[in-house]
């Protein structure tokens, strides 16, 4: 019964572009985590340099999305798809920027002697990374259930951020020479928390895409801040 | 220019010429009639012709005033008789196109159309003349009316059918009953064409002679009474043409010319009426 339309390949193309951008962002995130854990300044600089590419992708996707709206006047699921793309793209770009921020802090950190390990920070970083990866998976597969699970993990990430911070606080109180590095690490924790928030926002849009329900600013916000 | 193109242009030119020739040939009889009629009759077409009564046998001069008026009266009666009947018939056929009754009516109209005019005249004789034992203008008018009816019926039906269905729907949707829709909207919309049909029918019967022979007869004197025989151009021309008098022959030609002119006028009037009314109807 359904016939192919000539817009279908435009939609496919948008999909591919988004996934490519997603891959690039995941890559940046992974590298920034490695740079952090291995104190690798070279890697950190690479991530910073590569960010321009990701910014360019956002512009291309925006352009193509608006063209599609103008030509196609999308409705129903096509409309929700286009709206989703328009909302996910800046989230991805922000996550990439945050990875860049992480790397800038890493470079600064590496100029100072290494601090004692912060127990929850690596876990925080990996959890945030997993959330972003799962969010993109949920988008690809149209899996609203997975999206909802990811959203639920956000509380966990918030907790880890909090506990990392407490940890760093004690280091700062122990020895004033730790303050500089500890503060930079606090920022890094915050960045990962915000990457996780980005993943959450992406998942909210996935639910909208699949089910047509807008769940932004609901349920999980009740956790309170 | 390629050879093909040249050949095609040649053929085109040839066919253009042939068509023109065909038109000319078709028009020759009309032209000749007009020419003859004018040539022979122009001499007798004078003021007297239009205003004077026929002179007694043998005398020269006089005119066909009574015949001219008679013809006009006769076609007037014919119209009065045929238009309502034919019109209503046409409306019925258009409104109920597929009933058995309608097919019968249509068939009857077609048959009536083909009946020789003299037979119609005899019929009118039996119908109108015999019962009252007198010839009359009414009888003549009725005979001509019968000849008009099929034309009016068919024209009315065709033209009502041509009115776009949207008009009927529009009227009905505003709360018009069917009758109101037909008579208030559809018939007025078809009116230009219907009037043409009537004028064409009038033109036809104005030139009929045979039916008048047994009904209106002829009248040498001035009479506009409907219950008396009445003169008509056609019968008068017929009578004069058969006479041995030259003067009468000339008057017959003049009468013929006048007949042709009347028919021409009616046809042109039909055209003009259509054009004027169409301006109201232009889609």
């Amino acid at each position, binding site marked *: *019964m*359904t*016939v*192919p*339309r000539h*817009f279908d390949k435009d939609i496919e193309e948008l999909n591919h572009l988004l996934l490519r951008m997603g891959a690039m962002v995941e890559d940046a995130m992974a590298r920034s985590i490695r740079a952090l854990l291995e104190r690798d300044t070279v890697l950190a600089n690479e991530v910073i340099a590569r960010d321009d590419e990701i910014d360019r992708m956002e512009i291309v996707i925006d352009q193509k999305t608006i063209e599609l709206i103008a030509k196609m*006047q*999308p*409705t*129903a*699921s*096509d*409309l*929700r798809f286009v709206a989703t793309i328009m909302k996910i793209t800046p989230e991805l770009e922000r996550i990439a920027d945050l990875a860049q921020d992480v790397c800038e802090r890493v470079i600064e950190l590496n100029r100072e002697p290494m601090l004692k390990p912060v127990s929850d920070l690596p876990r925080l970083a990996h959890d945030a990374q997993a959330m972003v990866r799962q969010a993109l998976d949920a988008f690809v597969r149209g899996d609203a259930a997975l999206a909802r699970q990811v959203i639920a993990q956000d509380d966990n990430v918030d907790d880890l951020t*909090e506990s990392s911070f407490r940890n760093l606080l004690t280091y700062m109180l122990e020895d004033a020479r730790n303050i500089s590095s500890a*503060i930079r690490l*606090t*920022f890094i924790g*915050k960045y990962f928390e915000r990457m996780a928030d980005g993943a959450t926002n992406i998942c909210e849009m996935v639910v909208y895409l699949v089910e*047509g*329900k*807008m*769940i932004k*600013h*609901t349920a999980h*916000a*009740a956790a*309170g*801040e | 220019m390629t050879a093909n193109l040249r050949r095609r242009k040649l053929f085109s030119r040839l066919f253009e010429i042939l068509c023109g020739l065909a038109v000319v040939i078709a028009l020759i009889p009309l032209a000749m009639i007009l020419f003859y009629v004018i040539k022979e009759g122009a001499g007798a077409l004078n003021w007297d012709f239009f205003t004077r009564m026929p002179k007694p046998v043998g005398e020269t001069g006089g005119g066909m005033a009574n015949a001219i008026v008679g013809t006009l009266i006769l076609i007037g009666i014919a119209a009065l008789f045929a238009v309502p009947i034919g019109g209503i018939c046409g409306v019925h056929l258009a409104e109920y196109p597929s009933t058995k009754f309608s097919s019968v009516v249509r068939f009857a109209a077609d048959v009536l159309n083909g009946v020789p005019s003299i037979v119609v005249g005899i019929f009118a004789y039996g119908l109108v003349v015999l019962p009252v034992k007198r010839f009359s203008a009414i009888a003549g008018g009725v005979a001509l009316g019968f000849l008009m009816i099929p034309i009016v019926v068919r024209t009315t039906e065709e033209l009502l059918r041509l009115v*776009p269905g*949207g*008009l*009927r*729907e*529009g*009227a*009905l*949707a*505003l*709360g*018009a*009953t069917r009758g*109101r829709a037909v008579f*208030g*909207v559809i018939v*007025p*919309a078809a009116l230009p064409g219907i009037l043409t049909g009537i004028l064409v029918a009038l033109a036809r019967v104005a030139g009929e002679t045979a039916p008048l022979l047994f009904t209106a007869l002829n009248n040498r004197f001035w009479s506009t009474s409907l219950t008396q025989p009445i003169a008509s151009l056609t019968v008068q021309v017929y009578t004069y043409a058969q006479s041995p008098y030259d003067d009468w022959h000339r008057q017959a030609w003049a009468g013929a010319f006048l007949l042709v002119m009347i028919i021409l006028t009616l046809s042109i009037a039909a055209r003009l009426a259509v054009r004027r009314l169409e*301006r*109201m*109807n*232009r*889609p």
Partner: protein
Amino acid sequence: MNLVLEPESKIAAPRMAPIQMNDIQTESKISVRDFDFFYGPLQVLHGISLEIPAQKVTALIGPSGCGKSTFIRSINRMNDIITDARASGTITIDGKDVYGGDTDVVELRRKVGMVFQKSNPFPKSIYDNVAYGLRIGGMRNKRQMDEIIERSLTRAALWHEVKDRLHASALALSGGQQQRLCIARALAVDPEILLMDEPASALDPIATSKIEELIYELKDNYTIVIVTHNMQQAARVSDRTAFFMLGKLIEYADTNAIFMNPREKMTEDYVTGRFG
């Protein structure tokens, strides 16, 4: 624990229910229950049931031959003129059965006006066109007629264009103007419901948008049902949309729901143009 070092603070959002496409309850002007329609042995409408709300615009969409025109014509019984046509089920307007034995069809058609796809002004003057409905309704008072005619032409957004030539032929107007004239003509008899069967499909885009604006203005005072094959038009103009296919009502919901998140796959396929 909110700290000064926090680069951004999260504002606690109030708890909101997820946004649902709710069916808003308004009063029903036209109530359709299990309505079937037959042309002879052929059934063209199957068990149509829906409630058309008052003073809103309801659009009927669907592919050609899906029965939407037949359905809309059943509301004012324009299908009566088709021989061999038969209806079963009920359509009630304000509670009165349209096909009931004591229904006066002429009265019905005054209460329910109709505008057609191809505009059909009578070959009369503009004035006489709008006055037609009034005249057959028995109105004789010229002053009253003049008032109503001016009001109707104003409501149809045509008054200023024709006020100086009311006695000119209606056929001299442009296509868009003729259609607005037909709307004025329908409005003159003061209907409660206006049925529009693809009113703009024969018009150019500018005339079309004028008609759409008009529909938007009219809906405050009239219940409007519009058949359209132009989905963007349905989306622009209507409050509720019904999707018909093969004589069945597939989905009926708020227009937003139909065009953003339809429930049925067939609706989704039709609305996104994937229909084969």
